[in-house]
């Protein structure tokens, strides 16, 4: 039963990921007083791409072709770490957040290689910029998680969520606020959202993530897009699970689970709205201001770790 | 025994006055030939001293040694020096690095120093202080000559003066070393002088001077 629930959570994270993209796009459109496309459009896009032919540059090797698969595999596996409606997940108690973060890194590593394999300038440019941002963003991401882990005295995600669930919402500490902020910033950098990267840009010189996937088409592009949607969704879900898990089902039975699912939708919806607000109100940072942005996140996360150890004392 | 010792000391100390005089003169002498003569005189004094010791201590060996000193140091070596100077046809000046006045003061200082040294080290050795001081002063003078004079011949002479001092020290402290050893030492001194003579010729032949302070090709 629990296994089925875990598989359900996992499928939810994967299958609803394009929907999350669609909702954010819709929210942004509304904020910008546009009508916007349907929230289901990402599904249509993916379906359409799956039907198209796969164009491969002449210089590309098998690395180029394998990259979308590895990326999708890594992201989908990472999604198995994140609890959604109850305090555990498929791999949440076996693996820890380091594994989660490094699975994301695995995907990113291959995506960058795939970009370099295209043999044109934009792939290299995108990979180079991504390399800078992601190498810097890894530290605040891990440190933020470490702060929470120290408070929870658990390194596995299930344990961390379980600990938070037992806490009173109103007794939340400064560590949580700092960690949440730094993690949020790191998530923005990791998933390539504003103000670090503009996911909807079509101006080559400002592209990072888009630059990397420029040479992909057809099913490969579909997998890449889907994988990045999963990544965003999983990270949002992780933020929720770590900092606002309240409402998750305490035990496996139908009614609490349904409530938990609804509560989850509300919470993730709120986060998406927040994301949309940020994306509509903030300009993209210049490339060389990004390290400063990540630096702030790193400082906050380090502070969070220090506070966490002080709190534990 | 004590009486004999005191008597020997008196005899020996009276000689040491003459030795100090030769030291002073050696320091201020400007010509090599003068120095050689002074060395000869000095050796004669020492030879006399050897005989005195031999007489007082009734040591037959001492007479042999005295005769050797006389023959080698008073006669043979000065003669060889004069021959050498003739053959080398070199400038006769000493060419010291110090002026005569300075040298004189240094010589006086060295005599004082040797008295001080004998005073400090010679306490336990019950020998006449004057004679031992003279020996030490001779060693110091020899060293001074070798350091201050630029002529190869003067370095040889300085070495001989040092050797005189060591010999005298042995004489006044222990009435001389065993005869075989003394003869061996004399032989070494002679051979050393011979070799230095050979080298003096070679220096003159290859460098066309005898100024050892200008032998500075090899350094560092």
């Amino acid at each position, binding site marked *: 039963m629990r296994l089925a629930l875990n598989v359900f959570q996992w499928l939810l994270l994967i299958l609803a990921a394009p929907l999350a993209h669609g909702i954010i796009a819709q929210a942004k459109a509304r904020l910008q007083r546009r009508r916007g496309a349907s929230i289901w459009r990402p599904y249509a896009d993916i379906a359409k791409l*799956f039907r198209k*032919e*796969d164009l*491969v*540059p002449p*210089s*590309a*090797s098998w690395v180029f072709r*394998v990259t979308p698969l590895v990326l999708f*595999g*890594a992201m*989908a*596996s990472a999604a198995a770490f994140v609890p959604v409606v109850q305090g555990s997940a498929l*791999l949440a108690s*076996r*693996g*820890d957040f*380091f*594994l989660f973060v490094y*699975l994301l*890194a695995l995907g990113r*590593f291959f995506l*960058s*290689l795939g970009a370099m394999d*295209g*043999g*044109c300038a934009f*792939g*290299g440019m995108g990979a*180079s*910029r991504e390399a*800078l941002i*992601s*190498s*810097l963003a*890894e530290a605040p*991401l891990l440190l933020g998680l*470490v702060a929470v882990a*120290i408070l929870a005295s658990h*390194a596995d995600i299930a344990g961390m969520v379980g600990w938070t669930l037992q806490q009173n919402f109103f007794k939340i500490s400064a560590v949580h606020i700092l960690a949440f902020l730094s993690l949020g910033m790191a998530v923005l950098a990791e998933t390539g959202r504003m103000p670090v990267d503009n996911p909807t840009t079509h101006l080559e010189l400002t592209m990072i993530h888009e630059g990397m996937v420029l040479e992909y088409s*057809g*099913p*490969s592009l579909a997998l890449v897009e889907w994988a990045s949607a999963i990544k965003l969704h999983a990270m949002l879900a992780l933020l929720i699970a770590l900092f606002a898990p309240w409402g998750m089902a305490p035990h496996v039975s139908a009614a609490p689970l349904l409530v938990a699912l609804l509560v989850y939708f509300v919470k993730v919806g709120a986060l998406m709205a927040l994301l949309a607000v940020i994306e509509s109100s903030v300009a993209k940072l210049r490339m060389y201001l990004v*390290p400063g942005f990540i630096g702030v996140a790193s400082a906050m996360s380090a502070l969070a*770790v*220090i506070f*966490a*150890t*002080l709190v534990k*004392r | 025994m004590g009486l004999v010792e005191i008597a020997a000391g008196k005899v020996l100390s009276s000689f040491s006055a003459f030795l100090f005089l030769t030291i002073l003169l050696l320091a201020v002498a400007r010509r090599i030939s003068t120095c050689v003569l002074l060395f000869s005189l000095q050796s004669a004094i020492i030879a006399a001293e050897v005989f005195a010791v031999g007489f007082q201590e009734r040591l037959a060996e001492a007479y042999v040694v005295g005769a050797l000193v006389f023959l080698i140091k008073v006669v043979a070596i000065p003669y060889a020096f004069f021959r050498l100077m003739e053959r080398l046809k070199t400038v006769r000046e000493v060419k010291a690095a110090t002026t005569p006045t300075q040298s004189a003061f240094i010589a006086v200082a060295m005599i004082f120093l040797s008295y001080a040294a004998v005073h*400090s*080290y010679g306490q336990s050795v019950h020998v006449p202080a004057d004679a031992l001081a003279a020996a030490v002063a001779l060693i110091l003078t020899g060293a001074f000559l070798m*350091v*201050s004079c*630029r002529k190869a011949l003067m*370095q040889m002479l300085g070495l001989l003066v040092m050797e005189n001092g060591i010999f005298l020290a042995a004489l006044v402290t222990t009435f001389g070393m065993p005869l075989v050893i003394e003869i061996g030492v004399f032989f070494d001194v002679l051979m050393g002088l011979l070799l230095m003579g050979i080298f003096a010729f070679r220096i003159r032949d290859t460098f066309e001077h005898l100024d050892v*302070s200008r*032998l500075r090709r090899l*350094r*560092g």
Partner: protein
Amino acid sequence: MQLESGELPLSFLLLMLGAAVPMVLVGSRAKGARLLAAGMLIAACLAGSFVAALGFWRTSSVLMDFTGFTPFPFTLEIDRLSALFLLLICVVAVPVAVFAVPYFEHHCPERRRNWMWIFFSWFLLSMIVVVTASTGFAFLAGWELMTLLSAGLILIEGDSAERRHNVFIYLLMMHVGAAMVVASFFLFLPYSHGLDFASIRAGSAVLPPAIRTLIFLLAFVGFGTKAGIIPLHLWLPRAHPIAPSPVSAIMSGIMLKTAVYGFVRFAFDFLAGGPSWSGYPILVAGAVSGLLGVLYAIGEHDLKRLLAYHSVENIGIIYLGLGTSLIFLACHAPLWAALALVAALLHTFNHGLFKSLLFLGSGAISHATHTVDLEELGGLQRRMPVTGLTFLIACCSIVGLPLFNGFVSEWLTFRSFLAGAALMGTKAQVVLPLMVGVLALIGGLAAACFIKVFGVAFLGRPRSTEAEHAIEAPLAMRGGMTFLAAACLLIGILPGVLLKPLVALAQGLVPGAGVPPETLAITRVLPWIAVAVIGIAGAAALAAALGRVRRIVPAWGCGLPTLTSRMQYTSTAFSKPIRFVFSAVYRPDRKIVRLPADQPYFPVSISYSSVRTTSYEKSLYRPFANLFVAAANQLRRLQTGNIQVYLLYIFLTLISLLIFLRFRG
């Protein structure tokens, strides 16, 4: 020589290593003789792996005693720690030797090939002596020989002023380091009966604290010089690139590890943790080496220099683990000390595997293209598929991606940092968790660097005609690389193979330690992750491949007719953003020259150069060396050539001695 039961394999190994030599000497110019020598060497290494495996998994202690023969006690003994390193040496040496057979034939001048093999086998033997020695004499003899023979191998390879200078720096630094190692051994002497390890262990119990501290610091700096921690790394990026690739592989993959072995032997086995603060300098050295090492690596475009800097980085990671372990030891937390030690030792082993694989890959590249300059490479994946795949596996391993072996050790290191948070009320409680950030930064930058390396060298279009006409390496080379790559994957997915005996080893070195649960956790979870990632990727492949057409079309060229290789990002361009952000580390001296100068907007050529100006040699070592040379010149001046002055020296010596005697004697 005393023979005991059970050491037959070891004697076999030693004999084989020695026996390779006369074969080559006698065999003159014939290739067969060299093949025979290589074969014997490989057989010896296989036998050695067997002995080591027995020692490592079963702890069958093996002893060889030459004491009756040699002037000082010379015994070899394999305990678990030795067995681990012996295993590393033999396991890495086999594929490297296989790789070296065609490599030496192609790259060494005819008359030097035999010497190459002779030195190569002696070099391996010296390292085996180092890790199995159980007396100070044997250890130090092996230690010095190791340096000497590796320098010989570098010098045989070729001759140029730069090479000589680099070998000079290598030799000198190694000697100074060895002097400290010598001192740290001998400092035990007044308190132990001899220099055999058992007496040293016994003697260390009665060491006064000051001597204990001194030994620890000397061992730290002495072994650190060999390991290449910053700022003692000066020789490392100089010596590795100029060695033949198989030798670089051994030097970087194994030789550096002997320093780790020595340090672990001293800090854990002999000193049982050293002074209470001992972990912190190690931790700082590890962090500094890791960060700066990877940053310097990113700035390089000579592949072998880049890899050499990555050795610095990885040694940094190993030292982070060792430092953490020492901190835990000082805080009386044996379980976590064991965890951190396991992490460090596993990373040592892993680094041996993937770094030698990387250097072999660079050898295959230079074999195919005659260059290791990244700017001249590109598109090799299509031309050298096996080299490319194995190199990619090595890249993933060194970056620490899950499913590859580097991840396991880095993960264990992360977890030991995290465990530090539970050390209530100590400095470590704050410091260790923060190290997570440092290691994360190191890992992120390493990933950036290897995206650059693999992307520029193997992917995209070739940047030179040599790269365009590259052909795959010969079978032996491919075989060697494949073996190592398989080992990386095996440990990456099933780390339990090594972890179990490693935990036992750590328990031996850290008294009172249990089995760290983390080691069990990672063993359990990784196969699942592998199944998940590969399964999902496979499913996605099926889904994407169903009835779809794949068509090869030129990439869009912004309207230009074709894309050329000059339009690709170069290695320098790729690393530009990171170098820009960390310009404080590089202090680059950038120059842009536009020609002709009077037409800035219509240049015929633009050349850009960016040189790192931070130089340890200039700012740290030069002044030191100059000091000695200045002192020597002063002394030289005292030797004036004037005999009167010489005599004066003698007189003054005598007089000062007399004065000394008068007043003090």
